[in-house]
């Protein structure tokens, strides 16, 4: 991609679930290497927003461009985008019938057409990076939640994506496992990965976000640098939200 191209652009994006208007006129540009944290009350459309980026959800109006490629119904473009965009889910979504290493090598082998040996080397590299190389031959069900989520991160990284999406990655973890996952994400951020993170972890947002996006009722209410966002929120709804979650 040429310099100056935004990693992701939302231009006037709308989405409805039936008659329910879930995304309302979303305009957002994410630069390469930028870390965006999206927060907001549940049902505000923040998950839907990032799921539109790799078209797990379809938007009905407006334009979404990922690395300059516009997302339309064209399957080839969707594939192109999905190859470059990694995603980590709240429920991990590891494949329980495959071992950890098989989970990590599946897409490189079948999507990137990488030779198995090479894919395994890459996978071991990333498993070492998320600090669980010794679990490579276990099944997901044998790992703790925090370990599974780190595997999910490694699995996404094995496709060497340019952009990583995190959809509430720590929300279904026991409290003592949140930190290991956040640490992994922090180190990824420090390496300059373009990231959009939907999370309620405000400490994490403060630490790594370049910008914080606050959503409510399907619209973006406020976008700000973390110091301003947490220190001096402008919008009433932002203030109300922050006063509820920060005690």
């Amino acid at each position, binding site marked *: 991609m040429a310099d100056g191209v935004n990693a992701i652009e939302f231009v006037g994006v709308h989405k409805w679930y039936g008659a329910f208007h879930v995304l309302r006129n979303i305009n957002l540009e994410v630069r390469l290497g930028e870390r965006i944290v999206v927060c907001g009350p549940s049902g505000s459309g923040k998950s839907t927003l990032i799921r539109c980026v790799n078209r797990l959800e379809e938007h009905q109006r407006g334009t979404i461009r990922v690395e300059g490629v516009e997302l339309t119904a064209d399957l080839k473009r969707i594939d192109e985008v999905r190859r470059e965009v990694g995603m980590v889910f709240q*429920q991990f979504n590891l*494949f329980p019938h495959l071992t950890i290493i098989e989970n990590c090598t599946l897409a490189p082998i079948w999507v990137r057409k990488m030779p198995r040996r090479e894919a395994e080397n890459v996978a071991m590299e990333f498993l070492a990076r998320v600090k669980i190389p010794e679990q490579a031959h276990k099944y997901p069900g044998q790992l703790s939640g925090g370990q599974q989520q780190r595997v999910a991160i490694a699995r996404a990284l094995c496709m060497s994506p340019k952009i990583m999406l995190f959809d509430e990655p720590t929300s279904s973890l026991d409290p003592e496992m949140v930190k290991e996952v956040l640490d992994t994400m922090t180190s990824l951020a420090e390496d300059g990965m373009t990231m959009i993170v939907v999370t309620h972890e405000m400490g994490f947002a403060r630490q790594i976000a370049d910008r914080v996006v606050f959503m409510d009722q399907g619209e973006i209410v406020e976008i700000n640098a973390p110091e301003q966002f947490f220190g001096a929120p402008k919008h009433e709804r932002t203030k109300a939200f922050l006063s509820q979650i920060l005690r």
Partner: protein
Amino acid sequence: MSASTNSVAWVRTRSEPALPPPLFSRGAIAWARAHLFSSLVSSLLTILMLVLALWLIPPLIEWATVKAIWSAPDGALCRTHQDGACWAFIAHKFNYLRYGSYPVAERWRVDLTEISGAVLIGWLLWPGAPRRDIGAGLFFLVFPIVAFILLSGWESLGLPHVDTLLWGGVFVTLVTALVGIVFSLPLGVMLALGRRSHLPIVRLASVIFIEFVRGVPFITVLFMANNMLPLFLPAGWEPDRFARPLVGIALFSAAYMAEEVRGGLQSLSRGQYEGAMALGLHYRNMMRLVVLPQALVLVIPGIVNNFIGLFKDTTLVAIVGVNDFLATMDNATKDTIWSGPTIQPTGYAFAALFYFVFCYAMSRYSANMERRLGRGRRR
């Protein structure tokens, strides 16, 4: 200790040791007390069942062993010993039961087919076997052709043609069941995927097929396959009279299989599909690598249940004139040399045993598979 926990603060000073369980919670006596004699009703039931078993089982064993006739040149001896089975009849008819009217000089071809089939199936079903991909290729691609040539004959190879009219006995049952099993699963998977397709035409066609086939009795399907199949084919293209019920059984079973597989597909969470899509997997690879391996494992009991049903339903092909094992047994019992009151009970008892052995083996194998494949899923 309990006194101290009543106060506001309490701190443990020494760890609780791990103790062995109480004496009467384990062992055979404890088990019997808990499961067989836990209450008055349960004790009565236990005793009732014991009495019933003692009343039924010994006479049956006696009939089948001590009082049975094991060898005789004809039915005369069996006619005089009517309180025991006439195994001599089975021994005498054994080859007829295996091959039907298949020419005696050509029966080695059936043996060869059966042995190679058994070896390949063993190769496929044995989890630790090496190169099962080769085994699968041989079984699904090479074996059907070789088996067809062997059984039906190829003059230029020096194998005289044997008309399916002459086929009969065990090998016909095995061929029928095998063709049904091998074709119904992939067909069923395709129908199940079709039923969940986003393309309305594909979905509609699958639904119509499945609902229609499930809505009519198997015998109707057999009659239709027998009488209507020739109508769909070009004139002069007369399908073999054994091939017709095979098509019928495969299609019938496929409809049931489709519903089993659909159940498996529906029980997978959406997250599995999304995880696969987010990684960039196409529909085909997503289904092949992520969805179906999990969905099929989930429905192994149902699939094998269908296989077992199919195996027993093969007996119905007799209605359209195919001499399967049961029909052959029926014919054998009509031999006047052997006629006698014990011949039919013996013949049907033996047939029942034959079907039971195969069905029970399938059932055990599936239970084993479930345990083995379920290992990784345990949470």
